[in-house]
């Protein structure tokens, strides 16, 4: 097998892996969300649906939900614009599923002498790909809301897309200091650059170097995925179900899937940029491989380190997903004008000032 063939096959396998991983997330998140919500509301939540005789704490609930949604009757409104009604959920789900490919889940492994980077795709444009993905995700919601040919859905769709494009700006601007600090858009390089130490003790994570960026990004992250406190788009008490009111059964499931997968990808993004990604704080991958090589040989040591790194990343992502759920069931939602005000009047100027201050600090540090 020539190097090109190995890399090609590896890329296909990695991308399929990212796809399958992304697909598993909503299944687990449904259960987590419902149990956590119940815990916060001092009740129990679904804990009965298991497999065969075992309750399994209600983990089978997700499977039961999917089966129910698959068998439900699909009721498109008679006056709907058929093609876009069909296209909306597809864009949302498809765009979300293709986003995880850029997140590095390990350093590299050796296959037949070829170094295979554990990142689905490696673009020059790095994490701008994720910004592009969220830009395209707006279409799913807009088209779905309009195509259902109903006032509620149109309003919900317009509000959601206006919100998403407003917060995209703050999101993008807040990431500029990260580019100053790491000098690259490539996520793998950024993760590797976080293995050092600041002042000898604190791990050189992005959050310690760009805290304001982290806060702004966290806020815009919630707005991008239409999660509380920014979920005016599908606020249950206001707009029935917003833009996906008329989308039943599996179409709704696809929206749900797209939303959870976007949450997953953005949580992974935060973990990668600000919390060191797949690296353990005081025990970098290079040291791990060096310690494992005498026992396992270099190739197996790399694989073991990759598996450990992947699980570290999953733990970090899990923290942020849990944070998503906790925030959803804790805060009340913003009114729409408040939401727009926060996005335009507060977040964008703060992120611009952040860029200016970071640039000055960076220039000072560089000239020392």
């Amino acid at each position: 097998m020539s190097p090109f063939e190995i890399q090609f096959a590896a890329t296909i396998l990695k991308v399929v892996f990212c796809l399958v991983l992304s697909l598993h997330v909503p299944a687990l998140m449904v259960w987590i969300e419902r149990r956590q919500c119940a815990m916060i509301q001092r009740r129990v939540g679904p804990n009965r649906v298991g497999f065969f005789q075992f309750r399994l704490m209600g983990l089978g609930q997700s499977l039961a939900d999917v089966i129910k949604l698959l068998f439900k009757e699909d009721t498109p409104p008679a006056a709907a614009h058929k093609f876009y009604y069909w296209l909306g959920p597809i864009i949302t789900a498809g765009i979300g599923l293709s986003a995880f490919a850029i997140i590095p889940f390990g350093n590299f492994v050796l296959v037949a002498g070829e170094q295979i980077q554990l990142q689905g795709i490696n673009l020059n444009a790095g994490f701008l790909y994720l910004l592009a993905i969220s830009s395209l995700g707006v279409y799913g919601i807009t088209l779905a809301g309009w195509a259902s040919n109903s006032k509620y859905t149109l309003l919900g769709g317009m509000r959601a897309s206006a919100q998403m494009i407003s917060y995209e700006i703050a999101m993008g601007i807040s990431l500029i200091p990260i580019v100053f600090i790491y000098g690259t858009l490539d996520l793998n390089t950024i993760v590797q650059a976080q293995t050092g130490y600041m002042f000898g003790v604190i791990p050189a994570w992005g959050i310690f170097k760009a805290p304001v960026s982290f806060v702004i990004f966290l806020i815009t992250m919630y707005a991008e995925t239409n999660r509380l406190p920014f979920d005016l788009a599908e606020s249950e008490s206001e707009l029935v179900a917003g833009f996906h009111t008329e989308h039943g059964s599996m179409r709704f499931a696809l929206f749900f899937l797209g939303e959870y997968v976007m949450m997953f990808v953005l949580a992974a993004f935060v973990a990668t940029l600000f919390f060191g990604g797949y690296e353990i704080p005081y025990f970098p991958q290079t040291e791990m491989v060096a310690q494992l090589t005498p026992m396992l040989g270099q190739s197996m040591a790399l694989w073991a380190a990759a598996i450990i790194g992947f699980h570290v990343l999953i733990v970090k992502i899990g923290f942020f997903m849990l944070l998503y759920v906790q925030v959803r069931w804790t805060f009340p939602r913003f009114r729409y004008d408040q939401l727009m005000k926060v996005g335009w009047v507060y977040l964008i100027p703060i992120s611009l000032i952040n860029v200016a201050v970071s640039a000055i600090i960076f220039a000072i540090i560089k000239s020392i």
Partner: protein
Amino acid sequence: MDLTTLSFLILGCLTVILSVTLITRRSPVAAAVSLVGAFVCLAAMYGLLEAHFAAVIQIIVYAGAIMVVFVFVIMLLNLPPEELRFGRLTPGEGLIALVGVIAAVALTTKVTDGALQVVSSNLPSGIARPPYYADSENLKNVAALLFTDYLWAFEVVSFLILVAIIGAIVIAKKRGRHVKPS
């Protein structure tokens, strides 16, 4: 037929089909969505040319921001497709169509030995300039060029956009004042 050529053929055909859809649909939403699709295909072709930054920026700016505004306006106006039926070509449209055909022919063919032949590129070659970072990626070179050789153009374009924004706000405000109830 290697993968690059195959991808380019597929993407090229998709772009042409979407562009034809864009100009032949009667529903404006269909036209807008086909245009978005065409931009995404274009971005993919930029990616094939290893211009990853241009590809991503094309999606973020063009397909993800400008076209969203188009789609918003079209959806809020909600014109039924019947109102947009086109009749015969007016003389102006006929002239434009003729110019288009001449341009297409001029860009793709060349007169060699007294006969018209299709060539792959009729654009002047030799615009290549040595990259600032010879062994480095596309993004670094684009950034270097943008902030040194083309800095003036960059700043003028951003100023133009600012003028457009101010113009839009002024127009919107003026219209709002007329609509106010007495």
